[in-house]
């Protein structure tokens, strides 16, 4: 039998592709209900008009993650309070793609968009690691450690960039290793991207808090339930937040 903690665990690995942060950490998971192998997840976003392409990816990725859990026989993910909720929910539930949801308005699926933001995420993460080594242009991936470094490895694999431990530690978004001469500008660029992503994420959290009248910072609330199972998360049924 699947319980709420399992589902939250799976959703913890699903990221907002624009912000490169977990849906659970961002507070986007509004509710989880389990009945045997039947799981229902409700997602919410900071505004009614959040971009439909990212919203679609989150709903589709969340459904895939929950479906992949052992014991789950049926997974439903519903986006709430969004201007395209109806189109997205129906299409994802039916296993369709972005073009199926918006036949008139989408020219293609979202792979290119996802790749673009994986590159941005990689830049941002690398920016936070530059000071961890004496000579960034000579460093190897094996010299980097911690959550940012782990995420860099993951992103590199997703982008098809070498992620073996003796690969160059710092690369451009399309995988070209940086040289010593590139370092100063690379530092500024990565810091700018990192600051932009963090800024957006701060704004999203703030708007979500205002929109749903949440009392405290979302990450603490959810985080606490994930690390120390609270009553709501330890039972077979319950809702988050």
């Amino acid at each position, binding site marked *: 039998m699947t319980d709420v903690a399992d589902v939250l665990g799976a959703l913890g690995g699903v990221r907002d592709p624009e912000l490169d942060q977990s849906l659970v950490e961002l507070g986007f998971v509004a509710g989880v209900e389990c009945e045997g192998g039947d799981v229902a997840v409700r997602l919410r976003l900071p505004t009614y008009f959040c*971009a*439909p392409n990212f919203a679609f990816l989150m709903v589709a990725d969340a459904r895939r993650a929950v479906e992949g859990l052992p014991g789950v026989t049926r997974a439903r993910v519903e986006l709430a309070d969004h201007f395209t909720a109806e189109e997205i929910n129906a299409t994802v539930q039916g296993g369709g793609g*972005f073009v199926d949801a918006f036949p008139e308005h989408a020219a293609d699926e979202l792979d290119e968009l996802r790749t673009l933001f994986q590159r941005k995420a990689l830049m941002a993460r690398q920016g936070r690691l530059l000071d961890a080594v004496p000579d960034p242009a000579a460093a190897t991936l094996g010299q980097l450690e911690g959550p940012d470094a782990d995420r860099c490895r993951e992103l590199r694999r997703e982008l098809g960039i070498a992620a073996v431990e003796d690969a160059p530690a710092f690369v451009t978004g399309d995988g070209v290793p940086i040289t010593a001469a590139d370092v100063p500008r690379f530092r500024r660029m990565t810091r*700018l991207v990192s*600051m932009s992503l963090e*800024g957006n994420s701060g704004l999203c959290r703030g708007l979500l808090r205002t929109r749903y009248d949440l009392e405290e910072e979302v990450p603490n609330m959810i985080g606490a339930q994930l690390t120390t199972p609270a009553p709501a998360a330890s039972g077979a049924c319950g809702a988050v937040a």
Partner: protein
Amino acid sequence: MYEKDGRQYFVVDGHTHFWDARPENRNKYGEGFIACFYDYHKNLSPEEYVWPKEKYDRYPADGMVHDLFEIGYVDKAILQPTYLTDFFPGGFNTTEQDAEFAAQYPGKFIVNGAWDPRDGEDGLAELRRLNDTYQLQGVKLYTAEWKGSSRGWKLNDYWSYRYLEECEALGIKNIHVHKGPTIWPLNRDAFDVADVDHAASKFPDLNFIVEHVGLPRLEDFCWIATQEPNVYGGLAVAMPFIHSRPKYFGQIVGELLYWIGEDRILFASDYAIWQPKWLVEKFVDFQIPEDMQSELGTISDDQKAKILGLNAARLYGLDVPESMQVQAPKEEQAIGSEPVSVA
């Protein structure tokens, strides 16, 4: 005019609205739109400046004039129309409505126009009519605006170029670009500013003011602005972080000064989302936090004076009293002052 420590600042509010979002003038999308605006207002304003929702839907004209000019230190405000007639059937704020409002307060406002490339030839004729009537110096463009089944447009579309050519011919020099969450095709990043890059290269005599300094794509904005000398950054939406998240605001300002320089950044409140009074007061008192200065440097009073009003005054040909001008030549060049290669 704002005065602090013996210095006088000329203030141009580059982005203001006199909108109508009353229930009788909105559908469900309009309701979602104004609710989202209200959350921005509530989330980022100091508590004493938060309005009740009913007032936010439609505020009185004299209240706006009071907030901007009587207590808000603004010398001149630019009204940026946002039609959104698919959400607000009578218009959220149109050029005509703005002009009628501005006429009651002579000398206070600059009325900008708007166009939509999807209106084709008819829209070009309408632009000429608007220009004849209101002698436009600028237009506000909203690329995410819905029109029937369409979900937005790009600045480098064929018809957009036709309209930009018309602006050039009519002498409408200031093109304010505002990005939103929908743009055709929907699978692309709607906030991407690459289309501004193309248009700015093609029309070097026009000024492209990217509203919200490209937020949430500050990095893309900085990047194109370093390469196009006629691209400017409007600080609407970035300004209020000065209160709620001053470190983030410091980062934004520090990066903008580094990448595009002090001559291409324009102050704006985005009234009635935020009010100029507290933004101006806090900005003049603002300094890049100490622990960030080794990387981002500091901001000087001259730079603040340019951002608060002198840069916009230059774009709109406004007379600024000699005492409020910046005298000293600037010292450092931003990245955008020299050509750069793509990383």
